[in-house]
């Protein structure tokens, strides 16, 4: 996956004033652990709803692309 695309995702998710890339480079292992713990609790508390939303978004995007491809 393209690094700039992932950077954009994180830039959108995290506050603008937070220089997350510098923090991660400076503290690599704690940053990775923090991300894993955050993902764990997110999946534990809102896992199914996030998964449903993501799959719905992917389905709508796919339908939009197909429609564009068919010229409708």
């Amino acid at each position, binding site marked *: *996956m393209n690094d700039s695309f992932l950077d954009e995702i994180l830039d959108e998710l995290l506050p603008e004033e937070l220089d997350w890339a510098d923090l991660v480079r400076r503290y690599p292992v704690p940053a990775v652990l923090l991300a894993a*713990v955050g993902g764990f*609790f*997110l*999946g534990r*508390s809102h896992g199914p709803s996030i*998964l449903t939303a993501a799959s719905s978004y992917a389905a709508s995007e796919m339908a939009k692309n197909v429609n564009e491809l068919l010229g409708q």
Partner: protein
Amino acid sequence: MADTVDPRGPLEGAETARTYGNDTADDFGDAAADGDSDGETVVEAQDRFQGSQSRYQRVSEDVRRGAERARAEFQRGSERAREEFQRGSVRAREGYRHVAESARVGYDRVRTDAGRLGGEVSVFVREKPAQAVLIAAGVGFLLGMLMRRRDDDYEE
């Protein structure tokens, strides 16, 4: 002892003893009748006493030898048990040392591998921070969902 047991069986032995007793009584009677019974009776009593004494000495000698044999056997057995115990303790000590050495080598190897892996992870994270953070978050997300599902199954 063995020379008093009649090998032909108890009934015939009893019969023999009765006959021998009768014969002995007859002999005593004859000796008394002969007039010189006092001297011969004393001599026979002395002979009998000496025979009993020698028999008693033989029996006591047998008992003494048996006791010595038993003591020697006991000493041999205790010596063998002591050697076996020492050999077992040496074997156990060697086994413990071997296991401890293996554990130490394994721990050192794991520590070295963990340090190398941590270094590689740090390098990867510094090179691609966004990818590393998202991968970690995704793995944590999947684990959280799996744990949630398992907890729901237990609650049902």
